[in-house]
Structure formats: structure tokens, C-alpha cells
């Protein structure tokens, strides 16, 4: 007999959709007990549109090809001591922040997609989530491997996993993913699958990775772009889940809109870290944070939300605030880390004159007016041998957990304060977005493990800062932390490139 040819859609449908069956020995609700409690109404899973009709054979084939390429480059990078070829050792600190702050989030995403990849009742959606789960595991593992070589030559990478559970600034990404993972399966999909993947990860992976390429970091570009090739699938899954939920039942629309508002804001806050990586930690600049934001949020996001308008979905609440903040957020975030450079597992520094000029040019409305005087003062203090470190612990926002360093966009020199009272206790926030999130589900956010409060409760190794930073966080004090200038990283870098050491420079000066 001559076999009829099946096209991709038919084949996928037979090989995935058709595997499912109607349970008769047990009740559907026993097998999928988590599908209803969020209030989302699913009337027909068969209406799910499969974004990419990937079967496992093709998955293994193409992913193996990507992995082969990736590891060949990582091997070559290590063999050639590629760590010497980045533009400047300061740059490596962005990668430290990546491994300690972002890679563990990939692991969380893997667990989360595994969870929904079991809990969603529709087989098509389930399988798409499962593929994303294994991709996310790929990302955390390739990142660990790509940075393994840097770990052998720079300080601050070595205890990333231990630090992620404890260090103050890492509670920002950790609480973000904990929040998403502890939500129900549909909120998780809107949080990570849609808001994070579709609306925000481009900002992390595309311009930053292009910047890594521009700074000679072959290892990071390779894993970054390789990961992002999976991300294209993930973004599409995120968009499909949104459309599916909106088409299933009109009652889903306000729920989804609220989740979009919430997760857009949580994501925006977390991206403050990426903003500062772009503007301050890439010695060779590709584009400013503001420019990246305009291309990947304002332009791409407005296309997206125009597309979703037919379902009654609007731009996220507070998109306007986020847009106004694009001219401030990287400078404010860098100021926070500069203040607390003694408590971080990576180095900070003041930009050079040339770099400040670039910032002035890129941020004509804000840099010279609000930030340059502060930075020049800090530079002056450093030159006088009194590098500025903030001697106290910062006040944190109850929701995003970032020090309260954001200002009022109507009055950019005024700290933005918001407060709620709940069940007889005060809770404080950095923004209306963060306050709204708390006010809607206070019983969730009263649980936040706020690092500063935990230190004061005595739960972080002791009362002295050395106990907290050294014993509890496992920061090698005087090595991993403090200013880049004078660090062992800088010393080694100078030796590789036959540059004068700090000591030599001092001698020369005298």
C-alpha cells in the first residue's frame, strides 16, 4: 500500500493530542485537582492552539545540535583562556550577578513549568509546558557550565547556589519566582509564560547578550543566544496561553488583566538589575537601557497589547510609571549597589569620566541633573581614600524587596513612599504597583522573608556584619566584595595584561 503523507499538523495531533483519553476509573478532578481554585474557567481544552508542533524526536535532534555547538565553544573558550579576552575585568561582575541572581531563576522556572506540565488538564498545553520545563533546566545548567571557567579565575561566582537562598539582593529574584511558583497553575503561566517571557526577557537576553558579544565574552553570548533560541518557543507558548484563557470565558478577562498588571510590575522592578548591568557593567556599550526599553518594551509591547485589545486586555497598569522610570532606574539601582558594595558578592565602581559622558549623552534629561553630582562626589571621596559605603541597612519594599531607592517620577529627588496597614501592622512599599499587589493578597505577602528584617531578628548568623556577610552569606570578605579598584580580580587582570598594579601606580604617583 502507498502510505498517505501526513502533514506536520496532522502528525502532531496524532502524536500528542490523541494520546489523551477520558478517565473513567477516577474523576478528572482527582487527577487535575488544581485547575479550578483560581477562578479561571476552562470550557474546552481542545481549543488550545499548539504553538510549535514539536515532537520529541525533533526536539532531541535540534536540541542536541544546539548543545553540541554550545559545548564545543565552551571547551574552546576554556582551552584558550578566553577569560583574558573580555574588554575589562569590571565586566565580569555583570556575569557574577547573572549566575547568582538569574541562573537560579531558570531552575525555578524549570520546576514551575514541570508543575504546570503535570497539573494542566489539556494535553497540548501540558506537553508544551513540559518542553519548556526541560529547556529551563538546560538554561541553568548551561549557565553554570559557561561560568565555570570564569569561576576559576575570578572571585564571587563560587557559592552562587548557597547565596541565592540567603543574600539580601538575591531575595529580589528569589521572591519573584517563589511568588510565581506558589501561585496557581494559570497565574504561573501568565506570570512566567506570558509577562516574563513575552514582555520582559527579551530585555535580559537580547540587548545584554549583544553587549556581551561586544565585550568579548564568548562564553556568555553563546549560552545567552542559545538559551534565547528556546525562548522564542517559550514566548509563543506564553502568547498562546493568554489567548486561550481569554477565549475560553469572558470571566477570565479581568483575572488575566490583574495578573498582567501584577507580573508586569514585579518583572519591571526585577529588571532594575538588568538596567544597571546594561548601563554600568558593559565597558563597551551597544545601547543604553532606555534605548533597549524603547525597542523591546515600548515598541514590541505596544504591538502586543494592540493585538490583545480585541479581547478587552489593556496595557498593564503602571506601564506609564515604568516608562517614565526608564531614564532613572539604572542610575538608582547602581547607586544602591554602590552604597552597599561591601555587602555584595561582586564589585562596584564609579564610572570613568568617559563613561559618565556617555551617560550624559544617553540620558540628557536626567543624568547631569540628578546623578552626576552624586557620582562626582563619590569619586572625590574615593580619591581622598574614603570610598563611600552606607553604614546602615536599607529599608526594603515589602513586595519587590528592593531597597527603597526609587523616586517619585513627578519629583525625581523625592523617595517614593507608600504604606498599608493590615491586621494591625504596617507594611511599606516603593511604589503603587507594589502596594497594590500586597493589598490584593496581603495574606501572601505578609510572609515575605525580608533580608534586613531577618538580620535584625537574628536569623542570619549573628549580630555583627561579619557574621552575616562572611559566615552566613559566605562572601569572602575583602575579596569578593568592596570596590573593584584594589580587588584581587583587578590585580590578576592587570598581571595578565602586564598593566601596572595598584601598588605600582601609587609608587609612580609619588
Amino acid at each position, binding site marked *: 500500500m502507498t502510505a498517505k503523507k501526513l502533514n*506536520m499538523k496532522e502528525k502532531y495531533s496524532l502524536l500528542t493530542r490523541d494520546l489523551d483519553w477520558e478517565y473513567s476509573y477516577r474523576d478528572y478532578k482527582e487527577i487535575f485537582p488544581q485547575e479550578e481554585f483560581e477562578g479561571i474557567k476552562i470550557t474546552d481544552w481542545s481549543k488550545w492552539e499548539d*504553538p510549535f508542533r*514539536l515532537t520529541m524526536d525533533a526536539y532531541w535532534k535540534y536540541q542536541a545540535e544546539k548543545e553540541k555547538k554550545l559545548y564545543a565553544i565552551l571547551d574552546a573558550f576554556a582551552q584558550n583562556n578566553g577569560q583574558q579576552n573580555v574588554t575589562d575585568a569590571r565586566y565580569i561582575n555583570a556575569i557574577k550577578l547573572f549566575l547568582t541572581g538569574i541562573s537560579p531563576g531558570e531552575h525555578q522556572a524549570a520546576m514551575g513549568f514541570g508543575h504546570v506540565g503535570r497539573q494542566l488538564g489539556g494535553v497540548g498545553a501540558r506537553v508544551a509546558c513540559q518542553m519548556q520545563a526541560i529547556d529551563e533546566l538546560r538554561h541553568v545548567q548551561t549557565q553554570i557550565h559557561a561560568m565555570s571557567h570564569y569561576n576559576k579565575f575570578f572571585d564571587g561566582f563560587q557559592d552562587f547556589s548557597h547565596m541565592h537562598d540567603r543574600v539580601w539582593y538575591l531575595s529580589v529574584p528569589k521572591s519573584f519566582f517563589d511568588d510565581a511558583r506558589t501561585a496557581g497553575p494559570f497565574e504561573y503561566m501568565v506570570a512566567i509564560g506570558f509577562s516574563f517571557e513575552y514582555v520582559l526577557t527579551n530585555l535580559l537576553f*537580547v540587548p545584554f547578550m549583544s553587549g556581551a558579544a561586544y565585550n568579548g565574552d564568548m562564553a556568555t553570548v553563546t549560552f545567552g*543566544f542559545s538559551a534565547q533560541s528556546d525562548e*522564542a518557543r517559550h514566548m509563543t507558548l506564553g502568547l498562546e496561553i493568554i489567548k486561550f484563557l481569554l477565549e475560553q470565558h469572558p470571566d477570565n478577562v479581568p483575572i488575566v488583566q490583574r495578573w498582567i498588571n501584577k507580573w508586569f510590575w514585579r518583572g519591571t522592578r526585577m529588571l532594575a538589575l538588568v538596567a544597571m548591568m546594561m548601563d554600568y557593567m558593559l565597558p563597551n556599550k*551597544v545601547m543604553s537601557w532606555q534605548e533597549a526599553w524603547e525597542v523591546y518594551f515600548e515598541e514590541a509591547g505596544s*504591538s502586543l497589547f*494592540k493585538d490583545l485589545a480585541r479581547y478587552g486586555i489593556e496595557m498593564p497598569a503602571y506601564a506609564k510609571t515604568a516608562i517614565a522610570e526608564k531614564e532613572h532606574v539604572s542610575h538608582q539601582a547602581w547607586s544602591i549597589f554602590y552604597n552597599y558594595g561591601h555587602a555584595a558578592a561582586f564589585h562596584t565602581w564609579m564610572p570613568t569620566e568617559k563613561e559618565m559622558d556617555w551617560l550624559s549623552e544617553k540620558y540628557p534629561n536626567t543624568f547631569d541633573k540628578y546623578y552626576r553630582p552624586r557620582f562626582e562626589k563619590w569619586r572625590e571621596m574615593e580619591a581622598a581614600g574614603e570610598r563611600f559605603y552606607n553604614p546602615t541597612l536599607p529599608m526594603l519594599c515589602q513586595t519587590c524587596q528592593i531597597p527603597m531607592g526609587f523616586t517619585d517620577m513627578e519629583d525625581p529627588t523625592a523617595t517614593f513612599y507608600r504604606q498599608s496597614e493590615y491586621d494591625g501592622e504596617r507594611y511599606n512599599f516603593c511604589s503603587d504597583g507594589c502596594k497594590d499587589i500586597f493589598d490584593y493578597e496581603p495574606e501572601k505577602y505578609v510572609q515575605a522573608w525580608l533580608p534586613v528584617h531577618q538580620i535584625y531578628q537574628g536569623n542570619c548568623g549573628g549580630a555583627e556584619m561579619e557574621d552575616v556577610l562572611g559566615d552566613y552569606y559566605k562572601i569572602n570578605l575583602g575579596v569578593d566584595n568592596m570596590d573593584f579598584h584594589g580587588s584581587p580580580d583587578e590585580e590578576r587582570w592587570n598581571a595578565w595584561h602586564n598593566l601596572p598594579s595598584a601598588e605600582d601606580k601609587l609608587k609612580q604617583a609619588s
Partner: protein
Amino acid sequence: MSKAYIALQDNEESHYIVEAIEEDNPTATVIYQPAMIRIENEGRLVIKRETVEEKMGRDWEIQALHVNLITLGGNVDEDDDQFSLSWKQ
């Protein structure tokens, strides 16, 4: 109108794909950035298997696009012969 876009890793295989995209989407803009190529077009962007095969001079499956893909924007429609991105508005 909104722009549908795609970004590919800057490598040998992508160059053929970009060539094919330019041919099938005459109004598309191609932007070269460090290590990546971004192609955007108003409303819709299509990649046709046949055109890519012609440029490469060998068989090529649509799903192989994912090996070099970095990111995209638009609603995806993929089958054996084409991959398209479009915005509905």
C-alpha cells in the same frame, strides 16, 4: 500597524535565511547588531521553506529555524512549508 520581527544569530546558515526573508518580504528591514541580525516588517513577516532551500542549495526543514533563532515578535503560524509572524489589529 505594528512590526513583526525576528532575530537570528549571525552565522553562515542565518545569512541564507536572511536572504530568503528579504526576497519574500520586500519591505522588510534588516538590522545588523553585534552577533545578531534583526529583521522587521510592518504587520507580517514570512519565511518560506522553498526559498531558503533555494538559497542553501539543499533540503531544509522549517523546524531547523529554531537552531539559529534568538527572538521573535508576532503571532506564530508554522507548518511544513512556511513560518510566519503577524499581528492582528
